Structures are given as C-alpha cells and as structure tokens.
C-alpha cells in the first residue's frame, strides 16, 4: 500500500466546471433590475404628470409665492406656481406655474387669470378664505379647447363674469360715467339680475362704454325695445310734466345702479353685445320707448320770428298732442337778400318717421312727402307753452283751418322748412296778472260795509242802558228777596203758627165739650140757605163774565212795549219798596202779631170765653140770617160789580194811554204797609180787650 503512497495517481486537480457567464449569474440580480425599472418608470410617470408650464405676467405679485400659491379654476386647484421672477427691464412680474394636463388644452386666448385677494366693498366681503390660506390665482376660461397658449397677461381686477356663465352681455353707452361703477347692480323691477363691468371711455372719448352682464334667465327680457336708465342717487326733474322727484333704493344710492325694463312687446331678440343707451332717468327712458337709437330721423327746420327763449335742444315736438320727435338744434340764420335781410331763429326738428304712424319700414323720404302733404293742407308749426312756471316751450305741429296757402320749402336751405303760425305762449306774468284782475273784480268793499253795519247794530244793542239795567235790577231784587227770606223773624213764623193752631185745636175741643154742635147745625142750615140764595143770585153772572171777557180783550190789545216799560218801572218800584226798612221790618211785625194772637187765645181759654161762644153762635145765627137778607140784595151787588168792572175797564183804557200805574202801585204798596200797621194795632187792641172780638165792639 506504500507503493500506492508513492506511485499513486497524481492528485486530482479538482476545480469547478467553468460555467458560462449567464449560468453563473445569480437570481439576486433581478432585485436591482426591478428597482431600476421601477425607478425609471416612476421618473417617467412623474415627468409625464408634471403638467404644462405656463407664464402669467402681473403688474403686482403681492402675496404670490413660488411652490405655495395655487391656481384655481372654479374653486378646484389645477396648478401651482413654480417660480416668480421679473421680466426684462423689471416691467412685469412673471409667474411661472404648472397646470395639470387636463386643463392645459383649454388655456386658449380667452383664458384670464387674476389674483384673488380679500376685498371689502359696499357690495360685501369677498375672498375671505384667502386671509388664512394666502392669495391664489383664479383662472377662467371657456369649455372650448382652442389653440393652447402658454403666455398670459393677468388681470389687475377680478373679472366678474365667468366665461361659461349663462347670460347675455350687452354694451351700454352713457354720456356721463359718474354714477357707473364696476360691479354696480343691474335691476329689473327692483331685483338684481346682473352687474356692470368696468366702465371705459369710448374710442372718441365722448361717451362712456360699459359692458353689462344680464344673468340667465332674466336676459330673456332683453329685446330691442328694452331701455336702460340710471337709478343711482336721486333726481329732481323740472320739465313740462312738472316737478318729479325720483329716489331709488338706498343701495343704489350708495353704489349706483342701472335698471332696465321692456314695457312694450314686439321688440326683436338681441344678440350678444347689443348696444343700449343709458338714459338719465326712468321717465326719459320711457319717453324714448319708441326711439330706436339706430333709426334715421327726418330733420326739418322751423323759422320763428319771435324769441325762442324757453325752447331748448331736446324740447318735445308734438303733433296733435303726441310726441313725434324733439328739437335737435337751435340757431340763428339770416334770411333774404342783403338789402332786406332778417335774422330768424331756426329750430331744427328731428322727427321720427315711425311715430307718424308710418310703420317701421317708412323711410325719411316717405315721412317728408307726408309732411309736405300736410303742409299744403294747412299744417303749421308753432311754439306752445309747456310749463307755465318753468317757462318751457315745445313745438307743436297743428292744422290751421284758414291758413294762408303755403308749401314746404324743400330746396332753399339746409333743411326743409315748415311754415309757422302765431305761437301760443302764455307766460307766468300774464297768467298771474289775469288772476289778480279777477280777484280785484270781487265786491269786497260792499261785503265789508255790510259786515261793519251789522257789527254796529250789535254794538248799539249791547250798549243800550235798558239792556244793561235789566240784569242789575234783577240781581238786586234777588239779593233783597234772599235777605228777606233769610231773616230770623220770617223763619220764626211757622213755629208760631203751629203754636197758634195747637191752641185753636184745644179751644175747639173745649167748644165741642160745651155742646156747641147743635148750634153749629143750625148755623150750617142757615149757611145752606145763604148758599141757595147765592145760587139764585148768580144768575146774573154771565153778564159779568161777558164784561170781564171784554176787559180781557181790551187788555190784550194793550201795546206790549208800553207794558214792558211799565213792568220795568214796577220792578224798580218793587225793588225800592223791598229796599225800605219797613219791608224788612214786616216779618218782625207779623211775628209780633202772631205772638199777640197766641197770647190772646191763651187769654180766651183762661178767661172762660167758652161760655160766651154759645151767645156768639147765636149771634152768628142772627148774622147768617142777616146775611141771608143781604144776599137777597145780591142782584144789586151784581149790578155794582158790573159797574166796578166798567170802571176797571176805564182804568185800563186810561192805562193804555199814559197811566200812572206805577205811582198807584207804589201807593198800593204803601197802603199794604199801613194795613200791616193797622193789623198790629188791631192785634194790640184785641189783646187789651179780647171780648171785643166776640161781641163785635
């Protein structure tokens, strides 16, 4: 086996089989290949997706920062600003931004970009979201993909209208842009239906042009008959229609506004960009309702000899009361040859053929022919007062029945000339003078005289002394009556009377006890006979009554005035009487009389007078008999009463003339006073000798 060690086969040169390169490659190599592939794919994808680079130039890049500021379209972020730099010469700020590939094809020449910033105005606060998030660039373009662009010029002010917003854009023209502001509302029947864009001067600088956007569906109200007018502020117009104050809403007062309306139907639909005029007021807009700003007008001239003061450019031209045009020019021209040249005032009338009732297709020549016909039939022009206070005039075309023949002069001057007739101008002075003349003609003075007379009569009546005296006399009478009534003596009378009655009562009771009744029966029987006799004797009474009636008739015939005068006098007399001390003393005396009477009655009772009553009644019986006899003489009494009445009649007759009634009355009253005194003395006498009352002595 040692040989084997020595001569053993040569050691094997064991080496691995040489493999081909691709056989020796490990599968691990797939990992970097995959990583590479993924990376390349991601890079390519990123490159593909990175969007289109656009450049927007702004004057001012306030708030825009690279890598942060977004570009938004309808509030969706469609891109981002990558770089902000200056253009050559530092004139503009160039904003480079990438927008997504989906919107890039739509960025054609109608694309607009502006920076959205917070904005506070009368219309409200906008862009509030940018306070936190920072500004962003808003883009706006339509949905039609056109030739894509990458260079844009940004707007300094946001565009109010979205490119694809539904509505109609019209162009408005105004003479003055003072009340027109960008964003001001457009109102239709009071609601906001659109807004104005930024106003600009027209190309020739004579008008203000503003683009207006009317939102759908309100834009269907726009026709060729639509009129726009200015509603901002308030307006005071002082024209032929009088004074008119027009105040619109407070909002439009602050921010201005335009309103429109389409009053008449029949207008044609309008296209985008139709031109409208802005009228200064609603009235002006409505007045021009039939005016097509693009229609031709017939211009004719009128030569006035008198002053045209009060006529102005824009004054109305009326034909039979209807407005057919307006005065478009006023100037002075020389008429005639040099030797007999005259200065005439020429008013150029702009007449709209459509207003002459000729239809929309009528031409200016047609209208001229029509007017010529009218002139040969008597159509004349004249100035007529429109407003008396303002002194404004308008031109009226009227047909004069007996006008001098004339024709329209079509050839001599610049315009065809309509002949004139006398003007109807009534100015303020003339009218006021007429009014004063009529006031002057009123019978004022006669009226005043009558009134003064009446016042004088009243005054005289009031100053009459009788009128004045009557109340004073009445007052004095009342005062004294009250004084009389209030006197203690008068008040004491009732109690005294009661005492007397009580005494009489007891006296009569005592009389009954004494068997007086039978005697009283006899007395009553006698009285009954007396009554029978009286009844017989009264047969003569009708005669008395007749006489009294006659007396009454006579009394009725008395003059009332004299009676009143006498009554006044009698009142005075009564007044005087009541004022006397005697009248005041009367109650006291009456009281004293009553006291005396009571004492008397006491004495009667005390003095055993009852026993005498029988005798008294017997005497009364005799007296009744005597009275019976006396009654038999009543016819004679009646005759005497008749005489008395006759005498009274005579008295009344004399009274009717000029009587001394008052004096007699006064005397009567004095007699009453004397009677009162007599009563007193009588009472005292009775007191001294009570029996005299019964025995009659």
């Amino acid at each position, binding site marked *: 086996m040692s040989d084997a060690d020595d001569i053993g086969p040569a050691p094997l040169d064991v080496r691995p089989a040489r493999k081909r390169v691709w056989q*020796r490659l*490990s599968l*691990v*190599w797939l*990992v*970097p290949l995959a*990583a590479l592939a993924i*990376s390349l794919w*991601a890079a390519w994808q990123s490159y593909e997706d990175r969007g289109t680079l656009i450049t927007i130039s702004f004057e001012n890049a306030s708030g825009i920062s690279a890598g942060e500021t977004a570009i938004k379209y309808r509030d969706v972020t469609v891109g981002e600003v990558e770089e902000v730099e200056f253009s050559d010469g530092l004139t503009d700020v160039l904003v480079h931004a990438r927008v997504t590939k989906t919107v890039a094809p739509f960025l054609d020449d109608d694309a607009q970009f502006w920076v959205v910033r917070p904005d506070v105005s009368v219309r409200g606060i906008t862009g509030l979201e940018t306070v936190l*998030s920072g500004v962003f660039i808003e883009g706006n373009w339509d949905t039609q993909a056109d030739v894509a662009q990458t260079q844009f010029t940004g707007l300094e002010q946001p565009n109010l209208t979205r490119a694809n917003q539904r509505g109609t854009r019209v162009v408005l023209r105004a003479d003055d842009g003072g009340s027109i502001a960008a964003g001001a509302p457009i109102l239709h029947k009071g609601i906001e239906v659109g807004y104005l864009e930024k106003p600009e001067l027209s190309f020739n600088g004579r008008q203000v042009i503003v683009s207006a956007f009317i939102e759908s569906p309100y834009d269907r109200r726009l026709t060729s008959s639509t009129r726009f007018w200015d509603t901002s502020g308030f307006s005071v117009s002082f024209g032929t229609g009088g004074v008119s104050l027009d105040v619109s809403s407070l909002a439009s007062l602050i921010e201005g506004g335009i309103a429109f309306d389409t009053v008449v139907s029949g207008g044609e639909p309008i296209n985008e960009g139709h031109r409208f005029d802005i009228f200064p007021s609603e009235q002006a807009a409505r007045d021009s309702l039939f005016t097509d700003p693009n229609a031709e007008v017939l211009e004719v001239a009128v030569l006035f000899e008198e002053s045209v003061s009060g006529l102005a450019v824009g004054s109305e031209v009326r034909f039979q009361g209807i407005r057919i045009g307006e005065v478009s020019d006023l100037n002075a021209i020389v008429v005639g040859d040099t030797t007999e040249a005259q200065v005439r005032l020429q008013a150029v009338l702009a007449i709209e053929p459509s207003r002459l009732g000729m239809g929309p297709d009528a031409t200016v020549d047609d209208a001229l022919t029509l007017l010529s016909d009218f002139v040969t039939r008597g159509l004349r022009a004249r100035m007529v007062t429109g407003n008396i206070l303002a002194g404004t005039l308008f031109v009226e075309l009227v047909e004069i029945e007996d006008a001098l023949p004339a024709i329209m002069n079509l050839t001599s001057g610049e315009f065809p000339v309509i002949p004139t007739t006398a003007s109807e101008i009534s100015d303020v002075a003339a009218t006021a003078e007429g009014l004063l003349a009529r006031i002057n003609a009123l019978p004022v003075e006669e009226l005043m005289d009558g009134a003064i007379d009446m016042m004088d009569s009243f005054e005289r009546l009031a100053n009459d002394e009788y009128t004045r005296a009557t109340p004073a006399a009445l007052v004095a009478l009342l005062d004294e009556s009250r004084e009389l009534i209030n006197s203690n003596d008068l008040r004491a009378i009732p109690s005294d009377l009661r005492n007397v009655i009580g005494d009489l009562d007891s006296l009569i009771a005592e009389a009954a006890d004494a068997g007086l009744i039978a005697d009283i029966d006899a007395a009553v029987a006698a009285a009954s006979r007396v009554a029978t006799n009286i009844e017989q004797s009264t047969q003569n009474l009708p005669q008395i009554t007749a006489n009294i009636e006659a007396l009454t008739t006579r009394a009725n015939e008395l003059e009332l005035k004299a009676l009143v005068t006498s009554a006044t006098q009698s009142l005075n007399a009564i007044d005087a009487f009541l004022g006397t001390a005697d009248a005041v003393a009367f109650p006291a005396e009456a009281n004293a009389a009553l006291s005396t009477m009571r004492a008397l009655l006491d004495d009667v009772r005390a003095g055993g007078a009852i026993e005498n009553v029988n005798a008294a009644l017997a005497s009364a019986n005799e007296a009744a008999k005597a009275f019976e006899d006396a009654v038999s003489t009543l016819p004679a009494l009646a005759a005497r009463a008749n005489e008395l009445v006759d005498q009274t009649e005579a008295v009344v007759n004399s009274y009717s003339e000029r009587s001394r009634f008052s004096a007699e009355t006064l005397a009567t009253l004095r007699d009453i006073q004397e009677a009162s005194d007599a009563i007193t003395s009588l009472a005292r006498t009775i007191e001294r000798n009570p029996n005299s009352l019964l025995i009659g002595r």
Partner: protein
Amino acid sequence: MQSRDVDSLQKVWAWLIAGMIAYIPANIYPMLLTSTLTERSESTIIGGVVELFAYGSWGIAAIVFAASVLIPVGKFVAIVYLATSVQRRSAVNRHGRHKAYEVVEFIGRWSMIDVFVVAILSALVQLDTIATINPGIAAVSFALSVIFTMLSAQAFDSRLIWDADRTQQ
C-alpha cells in the same frame, strides 16, 4: 460540495446596486409631508437638514445628517471597497478589510433611525386640519435602500477575506 459561496460577490453587488438605486428617490422625493392650517410643506432629507441647521439646531441636524447621509453612503463605500478588494485579491491593508467589515455589520442596524423618526412623527401628529404629518415616498425608498444594503452586507461571505489573504501568501 463547496466550502465557499461562489455567488457571494454577485449577490453583494446586486443588493448593493438595488440599494443605491433606491437611495436616489429617497433623496429626491420628500420625506415628510407636513400640513398645518395655513400651509403645507414637503421636506426632503437634505432640505430638512439644511432647515434644521438654519434654525440653529446643529446637533439634531448633525444626527439626521449622519443617520440619513453619512451612514448609508459610508456603507455603500465600505461594501464597494470590500467587494473590489476581495475580487482583485489586493494585498493592501489586509487588516483594514476586517475592520471595514465589522463597521458595516455594526452600523447596519442603526440605518433605520430615519425611518423610525418618520414613522413615529406620522403616528403622533395626526390632528386633522390643524397639523398633519405624513410619510412621503422617500421614506419608503429609504427603508428599501437600507434593507437592500443590509442584505448586501449579509451576502458577503467573510471567509473570502481570508481566502484572499491566503492566495497572496
């Protein structure tokens, strides 16, 4: 029977290249997506380091820079050095190769520090609209890059270093 993994170097190179490919997007794309109420920012690795440095946080900037840039790049360099030196059987600095291998093995496990930071921030800061942090594509790429380099280091058969020493003797 083979005592050596004959495909070791191939695997090392393959994983290494994959890791380097993944490292590119990890630096290009944003690592963190930070959204606050008012703004939204994306920060890449280098950008974050520069920002931290600008704010004066030098220490943190240094840590992030070391973890995100120095260590991965150092690993790439170390592995490339090891692989090439073994292949060429170079006699230079044999001891250094051992040291290099040890370093690669040691720092491999710390390479994920960046990914950890991103993962923790993303999980913690989710306050809806006020503040939100989300990981970006770079985080995934960076994680892949780290994984690939670790696999690359593991695929390296350390015995090849000895083989190379012996053949030179």
